[in-house]
């Protein structure tokens, strides 16, 4: 990292005053509750549970909850880093603004690239999962369904059909209901005790089982980190939170905590409630729910999940197009590209940025799912690592006395 900031240079020198014609700053009107609910709506933990977690069941079996638990513990440390940096540099630019300001523009650029990998892949990954939950009413190839969801989400983005607060809230409630129903059904059909969570076993699909070790958990840790990824997007709201020095940290930590609960409780329920290890390792939650409850409830839950996934796809395409829009604003590309990414259509949507997210996203639905999941896991781990390293710079001479929420048990550099 050769381009680290000289700590004697004030932050304002890195971020020059915006020109007079620049957009006005955002209004600080969100509290912790509003910020947490808004972030949770964007995180859509149910889409992680029902789309990403089945991959973990197939590789880790009964150790899935353990892997997510360990991933969540790591995420708590990462959340502390995000909270400290988010209160020190509360910017809608998120990670790259924080890291770029503290650790140098090159570090900020690397963070931006990792974020870009994540935001380009995640909507496709989530969209591919739609077909499994539409299965009770229509049988469609996962790749085709994923591409269709991505194209629909892109059209919604082009028309700037942002879900209003009520609609977003309704989808969030539907997600939580689906998770609660799965949890209830799993616990009420318990086939094995809680001790099974501490013994890693996976089924091979033919009735035989094999043990799962810590090495397998570590190999799947990228995916486990990816499951709760999204809590950090609370810092994107830091320009809109009241009293950001206090509320950014609270919003990040509350969002992480609630995401972990919404994901981990159903995972435990599925682990103890699956009729056998083959069914658990197959990771077909839709079939498990149908088996526990009968087809009507199973269909209802599956459709709730499909709706939540489609909503997540729309929200992600709209949100992620803003990342490209912001990169054009920050002049990351040659001028024609910067202008293109910043071009708004008559619905005030950044239409080229939206197409640049949506069309490759539809194409990515035809890439093997495992590869997309693993690349995202690597990018998330690299992103967290860069943020953690940058948090050390927040204890440097220039920033150590700046007013900010400070993480506990952290070293203090001179």
């Amino acid at each position: 990292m050769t381009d680290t900031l000289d700590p004697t240079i004030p932050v304002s020198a890195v971020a020059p005053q915006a020109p007079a014609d620049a957009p006005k700053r955002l209004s600080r009107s969100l509290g912790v509750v509003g910020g947490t609910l808004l972030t949770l709506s964007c995180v859509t933990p149910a889409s992680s549970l029902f789309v990403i977690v089945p991959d973990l069941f197939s590789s880790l079996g009964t150790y899935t909850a353990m892997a997510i638990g360990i991933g969540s513990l790591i995420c708590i440390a990462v959340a502390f880093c995000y909270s400290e940096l988010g209160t020190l540099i509360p910017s809608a630019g998120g990670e790259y603004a924080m890291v770029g300001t503290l650790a140098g523009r090159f570090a900020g650029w690397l963070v931006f690239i990792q974020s870009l990998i994540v935001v380009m892949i995640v909507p496709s990954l989530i969209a591919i999962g739609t077909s499994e939950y539409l299965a009770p009413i229509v049988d469609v190839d996962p790749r085709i369904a994923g591409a269709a969801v991505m194209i629909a989400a892109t059209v919604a983005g082009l028309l700037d059909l942002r879900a209003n607060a009520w609609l977003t809230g309704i989808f969030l409630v539907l997600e939580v209901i689906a998770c609660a129903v799965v949890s209830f059904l799993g616990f009420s059909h318990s086939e094995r005790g809680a001790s099974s969570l501490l013994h890693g076993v996976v089924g091979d699909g033919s009735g035989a089982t094999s043990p799962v070790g810590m090495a397998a958990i570590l190999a799947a840790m990228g995916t486990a980190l990816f499951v709760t990824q999204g809590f950090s997007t609370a810092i994107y709201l830091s320009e809109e939170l009241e009293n950001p020095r206090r509320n950014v940290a609270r919003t990040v930590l509350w969002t992480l905590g609630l995401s972990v609960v919404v994901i981990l409780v159903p995972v435990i329920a599925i682990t103890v409630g699956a009729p056998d290890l083959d069914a658990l390792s197959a990771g077909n939650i839709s079939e498990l729910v149908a088996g526990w409850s009968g087809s009507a409830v199973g269909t209802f839950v599956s459709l709730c999940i499909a709706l939540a996934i489609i909503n997540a796809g729309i929200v992600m395409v709209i949100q992620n197009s803003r990342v490209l829009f912001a990169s054009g604003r920050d002049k990351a590309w040659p001028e024609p590209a910067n202008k293109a990414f910043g071009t708004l259509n008559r619905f005030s949507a950044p239409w080229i940025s939206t197409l640049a997210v949506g069309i490759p996203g539809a194409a990515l639905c035809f890439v093997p799912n495992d590869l997309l999941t693993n690349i995202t896991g690597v990018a998330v781990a690299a992103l967290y690592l860069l943020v953690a390293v940058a948090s050390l710079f927040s204890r440097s001479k220039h920033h150590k006395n700046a007013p900010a929420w400070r993480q506990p048990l952290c070293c203090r550099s001179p």
Partner: protein
Amino acid sequence: MLGYVLTQLDLTALAWTAGITVVASLYWVFYLRPRQDSRWIITLPEDQQS
């Protein structure tokens, strides 16, 4: 811990991510860095600039 986790992940995914990161770094070295005054200007809200 995160560094160790990274070393345990899928090699193909690591190679893809590393490849993208290398290309992005070359873009930084040959395009963004020589244009520091006009490119990759990180903006902060006005009330955080002082």
